[in-house]
């Protein structure tokens, strides 16, 4: 309890205590100290009822059983008019600071005076310790201590370095004695090594653990640095400085276990996990969302507006604020519970309001869409530009809402992080004006959505015929198979002429020839014939090798094969070569026939039908971002315009289904060439429909169709 009393008050109390003690003694001995606080080299003066004449005197001081005789003790009789005489003696320079019992006596005293005196470093010495600023740190260091036994593992301890600021620190450096006293958590630390904090290895390492020692350095009477102070589990530390038995005020200091980035990381992880839960649920419930043949996974799908296949700004706002709120609250919770060891914190009142605004915006957007129709779907695939555009046209109401959302969320997160985990007590309240602004921004967004015309959306696109000109030509072409009956017959006739008694090399060549004949005979389709040249090439290599070996054998000394065998082998190889050449020629001829249909295919008329919403019959059209002018179209009435197959119920000037017909034969040369580029070969195309107000919709289609041409399907 005395630790909480300021130093000045303690001196006062101590003085009072001495006075009381002196008074008590005085009552017994009529002796008292002239001053209860004495510096080294100064005299301790005891007022006693001594004789009226000078006399010898004795004085000693004693502390913790260690008694020192004051050699120069003298007695001075009472001055005229004074009641008491004075026994004085000089405090040795070597005296240790602290509280002492002083004993003084002279002749004629009934008993020796026994009083208490405090020996201080200098006259009127005093010590104060300032409050820490800041009163906490996140910067702790790990010390590596040896285990309790040689085989035990290294023990890790958290330590902290502090700088004590105040006045009256005894700035006399050791080595002889320790004058400055430090109390840490109420314990006087006489074990501090005053060699400074510069040694980088003072905390040891996992490989070279060291005993934990507090190091310190006195920079003057106003600053003392301490390092390597072990942090208790709760992080709370108290410090006091002083000299002798004099102690300064006690100051509190906290070493937190986690810094801002650590807590923020945990909070972000919590927010991420919570965000992943709905994604995981989504992944169990549905397959990937596909637009124009590209899969959009769950993160993208969460932001997609399925009616237009565009990214939704209102959904983005809602998710942003939700994640920011989760992050903020997780940060607060971790800080309060795990860093500050406090209770579960409450949620500030304005945060639900922010969530409410963003949720209301999302719901309001849906209501407006239902009433007015969707925005234009824009480019075929969703892009991030959808957030600020409507049907490919920049919408200022969307721009401002996106900006305010980013600003608001960014400011909120920044404000959360600005409060350290050791000091945060609650989430920063969102300023009411900002809240008002968010509401205004959302209102502007919804009003813009309400004022704008519905934009075109293409839900499905199809083309008839569905295949390219090349594809149709190839499909309609009658398969042209080469007739290789004669080469086969020739080869078989040759086989019949080779005597069965020929040696192994001839038989090897013959086997290869028979294999080639069999493969050729088995070819019945163009695909079969496609692989035949490679098969025959292998057979040709085998027979040529056998012929070469047979020739070498027949011309060796002595010969190991007959001339007839060598001749038969080379004839067999030649027969395979003839068969191979005939087949190659036949395949080339077949390929040439196929090529004819590709080089000059029939050009087919084309009909493109588009189904969706808010499709204007006056829209500008493009295929692959090249204009499809109305002059290339022909409708049922013979006009250069599309056919309206179905009008839009909500707005009769729009259609829900349009047909665009191209009569290839009626196109002029330039348009014909363009149509060739679009339709002659298979591939992927992008159809664009731009309403007169500039909002557009794009849809991709492939020729021939590889999948259903609906825009945005689950796969």
């Amino acid at each position, binding site marked *: 309890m005395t630790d909480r009393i300021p130093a000045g008050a303690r001196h006062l109390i101590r003085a009072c205590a001495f006075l009381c003690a002196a008074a008590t003694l005085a009552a017994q001995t009529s002796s008292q100290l002239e001053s209860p606080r004495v510096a080294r080299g100064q005299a301790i003066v005891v007022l006693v009822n001594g004789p009226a004449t000078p006399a010898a005197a004795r004085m000693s001081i004693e502390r913790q059983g260690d008694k020192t005789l004051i050699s120069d003790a003298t007695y001075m009789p009472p001055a005229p008019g004074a009641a008491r005489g004075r026994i004085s003696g000089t405090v040795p320079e070597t005296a240790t600071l602290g509280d002492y019992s002083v004993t003084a006596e002279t002749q004629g005293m009934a008993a020796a005076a026994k009083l208490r005196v405090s020996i201080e470093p200098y006259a009127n010495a005093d010590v104060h310790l300032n409050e820490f600023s800041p009163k906490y740190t996140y910067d702790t260091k790990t010390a590596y201590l040896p285990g309790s036994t040689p085989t035990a593992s290294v023990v890790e301890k958290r330590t902290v370095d502090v700088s004590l600021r105040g006045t009256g620190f005894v700035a006399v450096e050791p080595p002889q004695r320790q004058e400055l006293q430090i109390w840490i958590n109420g314990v006087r630390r006489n074990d501090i090594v005053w060699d400074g904090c510069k040694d980088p290895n003072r905390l040891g390492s996992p490989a070279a653990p060291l005993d934990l020692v507090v190091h310190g350095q006195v920079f003057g009477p106003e600053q003392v640095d301490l390092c390597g102070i072990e942090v208790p589990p709760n992080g709370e530390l108290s410090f006091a400085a002083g000299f002798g038995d004099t102690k300064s005020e006690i100051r509190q200091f906290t070493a937190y276990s986690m810094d801002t980035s650590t807590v923020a990381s945990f909070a972000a992880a919590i927010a991420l996990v919570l965000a992943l839960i709905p994604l995981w649920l989504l992944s169990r419930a549905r397959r990937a969302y596909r637009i124009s043949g590209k899969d959009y996974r769950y993160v993208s799908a969460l932001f997609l507006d399925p009616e237009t296949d565009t990214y939704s700004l209102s959904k983005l706002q809602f998710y942003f604020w939700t994640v920011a709120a989760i992050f903020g609250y997780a940060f607060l919770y971790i800080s309060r519970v795990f860093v500050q060891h406090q209770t579960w914190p409450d949620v500030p009142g304005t945060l639900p309001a922010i969530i409410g605004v963003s949720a209301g915006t999302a719901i309001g957007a849906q209501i407006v869409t239902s009433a007015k129709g969707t925005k234009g779907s824009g480019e075929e695939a969703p892009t991030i530009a959808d957030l600020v555009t409507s049907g490919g046209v920049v919408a200022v109401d969307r721009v401002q809402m996106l900006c305010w959302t980013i600003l608001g969320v960014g400011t909120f997160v920044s404000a959360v992080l600005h409060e350290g985990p050791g000091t945060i007590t609650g989430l920063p309240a969102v300023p009411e004006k900002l809240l008002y602004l968010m509401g205004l921004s959302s209102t502007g967004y919804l009003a813009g959505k309400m004022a704008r015309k519905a934009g075109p959306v293409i839900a499905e696109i199809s083309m008839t015929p569905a295949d390219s000109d090349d594809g149709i030509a*190839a499909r309609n072409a*009658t*398969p*042209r*198979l*080469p*007739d290789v009956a*004669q080469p086969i017959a020739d080869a078989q006739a040759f086989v019949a002429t080779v005597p069965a008694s020929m040696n192994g090399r001839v038989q090897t060549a013959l086997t290869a020839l028979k294999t080639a004949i069999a493969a050729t005979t088995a070819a019945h*389709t*163009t*695909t079969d*014939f*496609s*692989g035949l*040249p490679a098969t025959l*090439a292998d057979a*040709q290599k085998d027979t*040529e090798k056998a*012929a*070469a070996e*047979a*020739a*070498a054998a*027949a*011309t060796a000394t002595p010969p190991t094969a007959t*001339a*007839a065998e*060598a*001749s038969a*082998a*080379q*004839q067999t*190889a*030649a027969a395979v*070569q*003839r068969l*191979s*050449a*005939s087949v*190659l*020629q*036949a*395949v*080339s*001829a*077949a*390929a*040439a*026939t*196929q*090529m*004819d249909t*590709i*080089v000059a295919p029939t050009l087919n008329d084309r009909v493109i039908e588009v189904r969706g919403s808010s499709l204007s019959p006056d829209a500008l059209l493009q295929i692959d971002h090249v204009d499809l002018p109305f002059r290339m179209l022909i409708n049922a009435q013979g006009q250069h315009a599309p056919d309206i197959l179905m009008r839009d119920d909500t707005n009769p000037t729009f259609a829900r289904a349009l047909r665009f017909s191209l009569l290839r034969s009626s196109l002029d040369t330039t348009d014909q060439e363009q149509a060739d580029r679009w339709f002659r070969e298979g591939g992927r195309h992008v159809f664009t429909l731009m309403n007169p107000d500039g909002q557009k919709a794009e849809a991709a289609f492939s020729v021939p169709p590889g999948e259903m041409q609906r825009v945005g399907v689950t796969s």
Partner: protein
Amino acid sequence: MNAIQTATAVAIVNVFETGSARGQYGGIAIMKGDNGHLSYGRSQASLGSGTLFDLLTDYCSQPNATCAAELLPFLPRFQQRDVSLDTDDAVRKLLKRASDDIVMRQTQDRFFSNRFLTPALQAAQRLGITQPLGQAVVYDSHIQGGWGRLQPKVGAISAARDEQSWIKTYIDVRRKWLLSLNPPLPATVYRMQAFTDLIEASNWFLKLPIVVHGVTVAEEDLGLSDGAPARPTLRLTTPYMQNDDVQALQRALGITPDGVYGPFTDAKVGAWKKAQTPPIVETGAGPLTRAGLHF
């Protein structure tokens, strides 16, 4: 391109089409099916397209065409693209026989040159392709077809880094295109592989000999000669030389006259040349061997 390089380009495409550098002047291919038709000659003049009629008309108009009188009665049927000619054995035999006529060979060379080679070289020149290998690539595209479809996709040479880069790009585009088509066209991608092999060998000037699709093409295979046609040197080639000349050689050597200049015949020729005093040193059975063996 000089004459040898031009002939080499033609020989390369001949190998692609017929498996032989000189081409199969008598090669006949018949397509099955109701609309089937026959094609004939070194570069597949076909009944269905009318080019076979044009070729035969050209041949029959030559004064020394030995088979002209026999072919003339069939010309109206060729003009009408009469598919019954596909199975007319007499016509096939007649066409085979006509291919042995030097006039038919010269007619085919001129005919296919005018129809394919000249336009191809002009197209290459217009584009700025000057290197023989590039011109051979263009010629191949004209023979097989599709040049008009693919060249615009690759663009001008200026679109590529240089001429060689353009040719590489074109070959790559054409390879992918052929593979994307219906059978049997994907099987003909070996043509692009052969060109790629030549590019990897940095043989942009078609220096002979070269190996194309497993067939060795040497200057002797090109049939080039100054003035009167010289009797060719008989030697080991792929495919083997097979003709009456070889048979005569074999008779002179005293071996079975199978008419095939294969490894056994080549070994016998080598042994005979070595046995002469002094030994004859020349490739295969050339003029010295012919003189020594009197064939």
